[in-house]
């Protein structure tokens, strides 16, 4: 049953046009800053703005903090659920799916109203921002780590380590983490891609980041925002590309990001 379907090609063509037209248009638009010819002037303008590096740097910082805390939170929990507490799985899975139930803007609203005034005042520190990003990363992180844990024999590894006299910290850092390297990395790249372009949390909690900066430039200038979009797309492409390359040969399932 290997007949080549003409409709399949037509649909594929439509899909490719819809996929690539906005990308081509963005690239073309970003190069039209000087009238009459195509130049990279908009990129030069974008990259010479000191605020670009400041905001981009902040986003990298937020991404790294999110990745660190998310990993520290998710890996031991997922490991524990596999090793000692399968009963807690529905609860943990439920929590990791919460970002789909409580959209970013609603969560921000709740966080600001709850922690914006005493008794617990967290609004002045980046804790709420990072917490929000960790929540966003939970589904990807947990799924990736959970899939990784399924592939290794948690019980045997842990018992072997225990019988050799290893403590819990040693087991986690010397046995579990190295075995989950690929799984964790794929969660990490997705988290990085999401945090780097994130707008909602950063904007509404008023922290400097790449997303709000792009939006601000977009309301002030023409052409440069599109140059930044191209940069952002390349960043996403690189992250997901690396993720696919690392996780090649495994069944990777992805869910939607932060819109």
């Amino acid at each position, binding site marked *: 049953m290997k007949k080549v379907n003409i409709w399949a090609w037509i649909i594929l063509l439509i899909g490719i046009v819809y996929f690539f037209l906005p990308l081509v248009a963005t690239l073309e638009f970003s190069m039209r800053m000087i009238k009459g010819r195509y130049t990279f002037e908009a990129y030069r303008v974008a990259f010479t703005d000191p605020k670009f590096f400041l905001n981009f740097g902040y986003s990298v910082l937020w991404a790294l903090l999110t990745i660190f805390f998310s990993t520290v939170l998710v890996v031991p929990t997922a490991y524990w659920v596999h090793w000692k507490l399968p009963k807690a799985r529905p609860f943990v899975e439920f929590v990791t799916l919460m970002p789909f139930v409580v959209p970013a803007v609603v969560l921000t609203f*709740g966080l600001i109203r709850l922690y914006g005034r005493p008794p617990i005042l967290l609004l002045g520190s980046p804790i709420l921002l990072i917490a929000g990003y960790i929540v966003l990363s939970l589904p990807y992180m947990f799924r990736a780590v959970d899939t990784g844990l399924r592939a290794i024999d948690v019980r045997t590894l842990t018992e072997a380590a225990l019988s050799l006299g290893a403590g819990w910290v040693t087991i986690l850092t010397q046995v579990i983490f190295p075995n989950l390297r690929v799984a964790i990395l794929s969660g990490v790249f997705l988290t990085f891609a999401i945090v780097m372009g994130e707008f909602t949390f950063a904007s509404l909690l008023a922290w400097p980041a790449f*997303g709000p900066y*792009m939006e601000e430039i977009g309301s002030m200038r023409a052409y440069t925002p599109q140059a930044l979009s191209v940069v952002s797309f390349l960043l996403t492409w690189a992250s997901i590309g690396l993720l696919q390359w690392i996780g090649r040969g495994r069944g990777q399932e992805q869910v939607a990001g932060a819109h």
Partner: protein
Amino acid sequence: MSNVERLPRLPAKRLNWNWVGIAPFFFFAVMFLFLPSLSIFYRSFQANDGSFTLDNIIALFTEKDIINAYKTSLQISLITAIGGAIFGFLLAYAVVLGGLPYSIRTFMTTFSGVASNFAGVPLAFAFIATMGNAGLVTRWIESIFNINTRELGFSIYNMWGLSIVYMYFQFPLMVLIMAPALDGLRREWREACENLGGTSYHYWRYIALPILLPSLLGTMILLFGNAFGAYATAYAFSGSFINLVTILIGAQIQGDVLYNPGLGNALALGMIVIMSLCMAGYAWMQKRAARWTR
């Protein structure tokens, strides 16, 4: 907060110490997910002076701005969920069962992974560059038909324009989820159908479609929720021109535009309720879809 401290002491003797292992995760979830959601719920029923009231909930269904916001949000979500499902399904079908080279399929699924995560501000700018006033497609159309779209009163900064933008992350998601589901259709089923004298129509009507229906509907619900909760894309695309629920909540955070904090909470609560219904529907469909996968 208090229930976090109280929990370990509750079942005095038969406490399972294993639960302590997920305590940090539990603490995080309570602090940054459950308490904020609970506070939204609680404050939806609070008047400005702190007394109990149902006014905010009633206002959700009577205040014109709020009804319009919900209407627009629901419409966009419905349009892009159905549109994304149809095109996504067709594309998934084309690359999985259409007899195209396998490399195209790999490329398409990778690209779908990227596209479903390419959203927010850059996506909005990409579409402004495509079909905005000076966009590539706009200029093409203007030069081909020799017209001026602006003079014709044509604008993309409305519900339909935003729907086209949303589709960019909606239908790749459908491709990502449907491709494995289409893989799950076993060749034996089609052969059995053909041996019994069934045509392609019979196969799709009585075998393939009923099997795929739960994942199809489930993904559609997911797409619906996906669009319903979107904020960044809409905000960067049109500012506050398009009156969505998320835009209204965002404005409420930046300043009390509703002149009633309780109403803001009720607005957020309405979203949580709709999203919860979506997730429940999705979970139910997933369960039904799982019957046919090994």
